[in-house]
């Protein structure tokens, strides 16, 4: 009898640990609940571009949020600055080269948070995320500040057409264009595009 009880306890413990260790998948569906924004502040003008057609997924261990991986994709063709001529230029070979490299990607490898608590309903965490950013076919490993908040399914979310639980992920970081083989051409009266652009990300991932 004692043997059976010990075996059952061992099985239960294994199941619990196994349950904790399993990562939960959150999808990043394209649409207005996603926003990737860039800002270039140059001599001649400040350019702001956006894309809401971001897609991907995050695999998060809610009990240990540092164990997170995932990938998000931004199609270059969906990045708009509000000026059609400028958008055409943006997709050309000397800029983002949409034909040869149609997507910008960020592959999340790991994250570390200041607070080690589990991601439960209403919990938000701040920390750093490390991943591989690919722009114009060039991949660089970068570490960026990240904020993440977990919200359980609610009527508030349903009003935003979000069924199930959701993760909100935000980050702001800078990218040096030359690191990715993009060099703004010299202009007579100053640069139209900055050498360093600021990227702002606000993603909402859902588990259904």
């Amino acid at each position: 009898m004692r043997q059976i009880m010990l075996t059952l306890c061992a099985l239960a413990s294994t199941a619990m640990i196994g349950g904790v260790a399993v990562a939960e998948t959150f999808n990043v569906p394209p649409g207005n609940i996603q926003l990737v924004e860039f800002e270039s502040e140059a001599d001649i003008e400040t350019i702001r571009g956006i894309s809401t057609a971001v897609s991907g997924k995050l695999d998060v261990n809610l009990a240990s949020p540092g164990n997170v991986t995932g990938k998000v994709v931004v199609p270059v063709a969906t990045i708009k600055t509000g000026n059609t001529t400028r958008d055409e230029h943006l997709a050309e070979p000397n800029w983002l080269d949409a034909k040869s490299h149609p997507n910008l990607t960020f592959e999340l490898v790991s994250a570390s948070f200041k607070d080690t608590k589990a991601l439960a309903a209403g919990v938000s965490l701040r920390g750093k995320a490390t991943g591989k950013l690919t722009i114009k076919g060039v991949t660089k490993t970068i570490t960026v500040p990240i904020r993440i908040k977990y919200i359980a399914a609610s009527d508030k979310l349903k009003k935003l057409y979000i069924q199930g639980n959701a993760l909100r992920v935000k980050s702001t970081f800078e990218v040096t264009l030359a690191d990715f083989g993009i060099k703004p051409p010299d202009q007579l009266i100053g640069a139209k595009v900055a050498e360093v652009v600021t990227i702002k990300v606000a993603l909402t991932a859902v588990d259904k």
Partner: protein
Amino acid sequence: MSATTNRTLLVALGLGGAVAIATLVTFQFTTDLGVLTTLGIIGAMVGGVVFAVALKKLPAHRLGLVAGALLGTVAAGVITYQTFFAINDEQFVKTQAESTQTQADLDAAFDDDF
């Protein structure tokens, strides 16, 4: 063109150029105006000076030429601005407005204090 007409145009351009340089230095060192705004102001001032001098000095039949040249320059400037700098994509404006609203709603739903 007569010698007087040539001299008048030179005077107008010289005055306009002097105003342009003074304006450029003043605006770039004393304000946060962007280059485009500064160029626009300089263009307007140069055009104003050229037209004012021409109005006073040139015969009526020459005035039309100057006015036409100035109008052409303004039109070229406006077209350049609309083509390369201005927000002219209506779908972008709509998407941006919807996105901003949705993001604000999400922040509210998440009690987003971060």
